């Protein structure tokens, strides 16, 4: 066990932010915290990391645990002259090779010399993730890691997270609102609302009564995602790469956008069998 909380609670400003939370993260396991706003997801993550101390119960971590953290919010002062590359070695020593590899994994290697304050929201988020995976952590806490990232990037980053788990065998504590993605990549889901409402495999949680009352019937029954194909890819620097070698003349009338291919389908996420063989090129070299 990398990290474990036993009946942990934290009391601030006359109320319990979370109470009676028991959970653990094993190596190679993705545990996801879900729950409505203000349900204590970030607080629980901070308890697990030791950023906050428990007021009740215990939080224990493996000795000399190499932890990495992508916080939900990180506001950098514009007075800080801080390049992306320098930001990556904030808490770790890393050589140029490792930095480039980590940035390439999140498709941000072209930003290495850029100042952090000049990044867009999505770019910033990708760089945060690159920093977290830089020095092969044992325990990774990702608090809404893909907020502000575009749709294609979002799926790619979730695949990257899964790939990191597979390659480094690290334990991941993930906080996310993307229920459909969560259900397809997670080993264990913990549904939080000030306390642990329910927990278990994604399939069990999705069918539980607590989950339905917290997220509504629609969320529980509609855990399916819309899959479609692109005939081209946009590289991070803005150029376009054709994937299916489709001749340019066959582009749609709107200019550039092709009609939906016939293979588009509605597939239901299969939570019991997370899709681990991803062929996305993003994952090739970290």
């Amino acid at each position, binding site marked *: 066990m990398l990290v474990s909380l036993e009946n942990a609670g934290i009391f601030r400003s006359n109320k319990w932010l979370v109470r009676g939370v028991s959970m653990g993260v094993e190596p190679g396991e993705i545990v996801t915290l879900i729950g409505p706003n203000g349900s204590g997801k970030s607080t629980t993550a*901070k308890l697990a*990391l*030791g*950023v906050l101390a428990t007021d009740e119960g215990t939080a224990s971590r493996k000795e000399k*645990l*190499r*932890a*990495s*953290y992508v*916080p939900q919010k*990180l506001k*950098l*002062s514009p*007075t*800080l*002259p*801080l*390049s992306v590359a*320098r*930001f990556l070695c*904030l*808490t*770790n020593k890393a050589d140029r090779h490792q930095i480039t590899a980590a940035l390439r994994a999140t498709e941000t290697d072209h930003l290495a*010399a*850029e*100042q952090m304050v*000049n990044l867009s929201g999505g770019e910033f988020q990708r760089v945060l993730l690159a920093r977290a995976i830089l020095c092969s952590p044992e325990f990774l*806490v990702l608090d809404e890691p893909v907020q502000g990232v575009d749709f294609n990037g979002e799926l790619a980053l979730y695949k990257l997270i899964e790939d990191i788990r597979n390659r480094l065998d690290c334990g991941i504590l993930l906080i996310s609102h993307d229920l459909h993605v969560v259900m397809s990549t997670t080993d264990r889901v913990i549904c939080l609302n000030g306390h642990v409402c329910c927990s278990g495999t994604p399939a069990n949680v999705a069918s539980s009564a607590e989950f339905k009352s917290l997220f509504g019937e629609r969320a529980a029954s509609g855990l399916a995602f819309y899959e479609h194909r692109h005939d081209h890819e946009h590289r991070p620097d803005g150029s376009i790469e054709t994937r299916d070698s489709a001749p340019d003349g066959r582009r749609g009338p709107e200019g550039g956008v092709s009609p939906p291919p016939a293979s588009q389908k509605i597939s239901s996420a299969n939570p019991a069998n997370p899709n681990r063989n991803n062929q996305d090129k993003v994952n090739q070299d970290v």
Partner: protein
Amino acid sequence: MFDDFFTRALIGGIGVALVAGPLGCFIIWRRLAYFGDTLSHSALLGVALALLLELNITFAVFVVSVIVSLLLVILQRRASLSSDALLGLLAHSALAVGLVVLAFMTWVRVDLMGFLFGDILSITTFDLTLIWGGGLFVLAVLARIWRPLFAATVSYELATAEGIKPDQANVIFMVLMAAVIAVSLKIVGVLLITALLIIPAAAARRFASSPEQMAVTAIVVGVVSVWLGLNGSLEFDTPAGPSIVVAALLCFVLSLIPIKVPYLRK
């Protein structure tokens, strides 16, 4: 060479600029400008206590500054007042208590102006040893805690989560601040110490693309300001401390002029 009062002033001033640069950067990054003010205001209480107990002034100022910063940390945890209110409270009560204590000591004739605005031209060789010895020590300690301190400056939570102990670095940083204020009291005086910390660092910001670069540039700006200010003070017969601050201000204004700096991408 140290016989000349002007040379002593110059060497002392440069010694202070050397430490003020990097520490000033942290003050700007951490939005601690008012904290520096609080410490320097309380320096006058240190002066009063030193005269009362016949202690070394620099030492007494250092001790009082450390006590005030610790008080601040304790009050921040306990009291329900915001930090700026607490800083104002500490700064001005310490200043007022210092002035009252000085007034009680009728047997001591103090040149108050000298402490408020500095008396760089009266620097002794012993002061120089203190400034350079203390200064180099401060720089050495700062270099040692640079990584954790900088990580904690960027994000306290991130640093804590990833096993860096930021609290330790923060406390050491406060003590270093107290030391710098104690040694620079004679150069620029209570009211202008913060200026010497902040203005060179602010002027350096635009020319820096990394934190280390900003610290070094701040040192250069500080040294140039000391040299310009002292020469100007000699030339125009103006008070030395304020002249140095005016020179630093000129550097800052120059840094605002939009010229293309070739080695900067942004």
